[in-house]
């Protein structure tokens, strides 16, 4: 065994970049034991933290295995903000262009176009053309923030389209600022690109303030998380599932059509574990006439990550290691015909897995809003 000498300058740098609490890690391993990646690719976040405590080689490779799903943090007996440590390590090792290949493109696109998907600014709002999308102004109560994924990804665009229909049907006072929005910055923040994140945040925050927005609705839990946890605030933020649950509960949105199907729900990490929103989507699903709701064995706090958070949505994961494959199989095993999700990353990953598993005739993957659209 080769002797190594701790390189505490690296430790200090990670601590200064926001990973300060790594010093309190007891190395008990509850994080690794909870991590969804550990059983598929041997990733040990405990080991990454240990290397960080010594500043030793290996951190820079391990740190990209994490999808920031928060399962480890929930069980950490020290209450360690583990995601902050991962994020800080990424900042130290990768900020300013040393990112893995696919993420370099994401950063490039965010810098030049304000979205991670390479889409041009000019076409961001094209999907709304010909649809009854009100302009946001002083007469509107709610500002609907259009996530980049809904704007540029063809599959997710359908969720955006359904949202327009559902919000109008619910009689909500809402509108979209049809210019100037950029990515919320959640993923790039977790990738450790804090400066770029700061710019995106300032742009959106200024847009909200300039338009005097007091209430914002997001379709993606990642936008919801960032606006509530990372932005300066001054406005109420609701996720679409909360809006729908309210509308169903108050009777403004009537789920009137029968759905003679078995459905299950996947808790997105950023809706559930990160933000504690578990009941609202279930309340909506359980209000659908005739639909039979079943839980997957791993649900709520125990939900299995789709594998797409923390920048991983853009990274290549070898076959056999894709969490979304396991998750779709788990959904199929419940006998459900529809796997309902509530996050653009989960939707993308699960649609892929459906194809990989040749399960397109076994199970459908739908966003909550899409499903609601079919029963109103």
């Amino acid at each position, binding site marked *: 065994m080769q002797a190594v000498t701790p390189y505490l300058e690296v430790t200090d740098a990670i601590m200064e970049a926001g990973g300060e609490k790594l010093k309190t890690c007891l190395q*008990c*391993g*509850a994080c*690794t034991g*909870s991590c969804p990646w550990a*059983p598929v690719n041997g990733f040990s976040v405990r080991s990454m933290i240990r290397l960080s405590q010594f500043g030793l080689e290996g951190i820079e490779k391990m740190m990209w295995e994490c999808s920031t799903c928060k399962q480890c943090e929930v069980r950490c007996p020290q209450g360690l903000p583990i995601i902050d440590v991962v994020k800080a390590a990424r900042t130290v090792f990768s900020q300013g262009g040393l990112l893995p290949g696919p993420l370099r493109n994401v950063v490039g696109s965010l810098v030049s176009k304000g979205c991670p998907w390479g889409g041009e600014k000019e076409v961001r709002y094209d999907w709304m053309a010909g649809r009854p999308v009100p302009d946001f102004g002083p007469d509107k109560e709610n500002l609907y923030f259009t996530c980049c994924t809904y704007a540029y990804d063809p599959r997710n665009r359908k969720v955006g389209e359904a949202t327009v229909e559902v919000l109008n049907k619910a009689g909500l006072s809402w509108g979209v600022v049809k210019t100037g929005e950029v990515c919320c910055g959640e993923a790039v923040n977790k990738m450790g690109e804090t400066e770029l994140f700061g710019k995106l945040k300032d742009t959106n925050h200024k847009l909200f303030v300039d338009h005097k927005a007091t209430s914002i609705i997001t379709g993606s839990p990642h936008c919801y998380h960032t606006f509530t946890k990372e932005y300066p605030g001054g406005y109420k933020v609701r996720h679409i599932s909360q809006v729908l649950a309210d509308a169903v509960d108050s009777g403004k949105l009537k789920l009137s059509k029968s759905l003679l199907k078995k459905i299950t729900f996947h808790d997105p990490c950023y809706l559930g574990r990160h933000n504690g929103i578990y009941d609202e989507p279930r309340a909506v699903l359980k209000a659908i006439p005739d639909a039979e709701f079943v839980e997957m*064995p791993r649900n709520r*706090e125990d939900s299995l990550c789709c594998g797409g958070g923390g920048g991983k949505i853009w990274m290549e994961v070898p076959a056999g290691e894709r969490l979304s494959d396991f998750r779709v199989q788990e959904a199929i095993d419940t006998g459900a015909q529809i796997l309902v999700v509530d996050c653009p990353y989960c939707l993308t990953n699960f649609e892929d897995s459906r194809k990989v598993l040749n399960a397109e005739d076994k199970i459908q993957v739908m966003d909550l809003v899409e499903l609601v659209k079919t029963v109103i």
Partner: protein
Amino acid sequence: MAKITKKPDKEKIGVFLCHCGTNIAGVVDIPALAGYTRDLPGVEMVDEYKFMCSQPGQDLIKDSIKKHKLTKVIVAACSPLMHENTFRKACEEAGLNRYCFIMVNNREHNSWVTEDKALALQKAKDLIRGAVARAFWLEPLEVKEVGVNPNVLILGGGIAGIQAALDLAESGRTVYLVEREQSIGGNMAKFDKTFPTLDCAACILTPKMVSVGQHPNIKLWNYAEVDEVSGFVGNFKVKVRHKATSVNFEKCTGCGICQEKCPVKRPSEFDEGLGNRKAIYTLFAQAVPNKPVIDRVNCTYYIKGKCKVCEKFCEPKAIDFEMKDSVEEIEVGSIILATGFHLWEAGQMPELGMGKYPNVLTSLQFERMSNSSGPTLGKILLKDGREPESVAILHCTGSRDVNYHEYCSRVCCMYALKFAHLIKEKTKAHVYNFYIDMRCFGKGYEEFYHRLLEENVTFIRGKAASVTDRAENESESGKLIVMGEDTLSQKLLRLPVDMVILTNAIEPQLDAQEVARKFKISCAGGGFFLEKHPKLAPVATASDGVFIAGACQSPKDIPDTVAQGQAAASAVFALTQRGKVELEATTAIVDEELCSGCEICLSLCPYQAISHNAEKKISAINDALCKGCGTCAAACPSKAIFARHYTNQQILAELEGVLNERI
């Protein structure tokens, strides 16, 4: 020269500056401080010493008092909590009243809280100037003594209370041992073997329980609770409520036929829900006293108005359905709280499967299962009656975990080893221990750990993350799967086992706060009773005459619990043997001329020390109850109350002294 408003009297003030090694002298420039102090008005002499609390330091004070005919003494050293009494005593030995002494806290309030030497010197000067200014107004006070009632109340009949009761009863004291359950014995009575010696808990406990039941000096009041406590050290009045047992203990012979015939079956609390008891019950076969009580919530007669099977079979006619709670007032001089612990409910960690999978057990459930008088007669069995082939013991369940209890529960590592041994002894199962750190600190403990290694128990260095029943292959079918990382080999383990035993955190009794309020003591972080000093007064409390022992103070093993029981007994013995106790003279006093009898002070006094004298229509303060907190003095609208040793004049003089900068 500092400006100090002083009484015209001629005072000779001696100021003594303690270095406390380098604790103070390393930060505060003592020679400079001494030079400054010498010039203050009234200061006759200034001296300094490395450790003022040492014998030479105290002698220095005593000699100086005599030599310089000092009328007031100031010591600038550590916290008064630490050494005020030491220096008061030194003053008195030199003929100076103890209240003519002031302690300046130059350590905790100064040298320990700054690294800035210039500021530290400035603050020391300010504090000493304040003390000198106040010293002019200090007056000698008379110290009163009160008698100490030799009787003792012990609350809680676990091993701590039992040990304290026996020691004190042997010394001739009358002991009231109040236990809220049907029997004494506490948690220890539930245990099977005890670590590290493996002697059976019952074998060493029950003889002591029997002695308690038989001792002429012990009044064993089981099924009783304390309603109210008043009074003060040496002279407490305690109202004890005897809960209605529905059984006349005078008549009951303890034959047990009522329990046999009672048709009601309830999960036994003593067996941790693994076995049943009747509605009329004793906790266990060796209960002391061995006389049953009726659980009225579950008794058919109390629910439906008929049954009375127990009464029918009771020959001595001991059943009394009409019995009511009765309250008895006793007088005692001292109190020992030995109320034990509560086992944390692991259901709050759903990932460990407690309450979800029947073969996940709490630590006490395993104790009962392994106990030969328990629900399985000592056999280690799965819910379906099979013997387990593999068992995982998960350490730190809810302990060392900021989400639940931050502290270490201290006994789990050791009883986990004991469990592993018992399982190996009684079954062919392989045993895995998931641990974060092995803490085997006591006498013979490390040796016991070594013995378990020899017994081929597998130790996994990692906290278990989850327990599920989700089998991934045939060999896992029907098993509990424990996931965790072995951090030493850096391998993620997926371990199928038949049984999982948790090591639930030891937490304070659920009503610990309420009990603390009743006895006017405090709870520390984590909710356990707070001792007066963690090292030097571990069984005393902030309430004179009230002592604590055992797991109510913090999680403890049996040896430490017994030691504390004996320590509390010896503290009580010392108090009662002296027969009297000095009362702090720093109490409040009412100026009868000024008091208007408005009674505002009565409701404000936290110690119920003030009463209304209806004849004179004024307030009266009981010196023995008053703690000198000053609340009444501050609130009195007529300014009729002042606090001795903290008069307005004294406080204002000190403030003036502190705030007056050097001119």
